[in-house]
């Protein structure tokens, strides 16, 4: 990406987990275009998909008639995501279940609730706020220094 150029991506999708694929594919391509490698782009895509799934499942309780809005801004050294929903505010207080301890008993391995750990591990900054009737998640990922 040439210096001083900003790139923008803006998507609004229905609150359906299947439609999170649209966000995923768009974010993956956007990240590649900005200079992230294949694995980094996948991980960023994964983080945005996990956010979308949490919104659909928890904020909207799987009601498909609502909207999820994603803004992405690509700068010289970072990408800034803002994901907005108007559902129930998130409960971010539950303890992380990952990374797992490989020495744990097999029954202790988590079968769900790994999304938040993935999001916070992949992104450099994650901030969440409720403003008026909107839940706003802002995530930043810096490009690796070359």
């Amino acid at each position, binding site marked *: 990406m040439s210096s001083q150029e900003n790139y923008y991506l803006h998507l609004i999708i229905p609150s359906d987990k299947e439609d999170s694929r649209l966000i995923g594919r768009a974010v993956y391509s956007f990240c590649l275009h900005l200079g992230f490698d294949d694995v980094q782009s996948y991980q960023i895509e994964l983080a945005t998909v*996990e956010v979308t799934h949490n919104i659909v499942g928890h904020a909207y309780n799987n009601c498909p008639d609502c909207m999820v809005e994603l803004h992405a801004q690509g700068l010289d050294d970072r990408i800034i995501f803002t994901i907005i929903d108007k559902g129930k505010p998130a409960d971010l207080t539950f303890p992380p279940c*990952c990374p797992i301890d490989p020495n744990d008993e*097999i029954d202790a391995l988590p*079968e769900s609730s790994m999304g938040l*750990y993935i999001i916070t591990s992949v992104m450099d900054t994650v901030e969440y706020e409720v403003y008026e009737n909107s839940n706003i998640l802002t995530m930043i990922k810096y490009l690796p220094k070359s």
Partner: protein
Amino acid sequence: MKIQTRKSDSTLVVTILEERFDATCAPDFIVVIKECLADNNVQIILDFSHVDFIDSTALGVIIKSFKWLRQADDGNGELALCSVNNKIMSLLQLTRMNRVFPIFSDSQEAIKVLTESK
């Protein structure tokens, strides 16, 4: 969910023919594994050679299946993964599941190791 199965001795290779293995097709995967278990297949290799993306829901159902297989046949069952690309491996490393699942470079190697371990 599109899959392909083939039997090699006592091992069943389940090739996932979806580019994206995610929350949309994860419930179907559970049905597939239940059917495999109902047919007394307790040594299963999941071939990821066609899969480019997985999410945490897919990882969750793989973990669930891993538990079922490990408990099957008086503890002699096994679930192994093969042909995992770098992206998927990065998720397994992030969650440390790469240290739990048996992971092989391809189905041939996986069949060889699982057959010898019986």
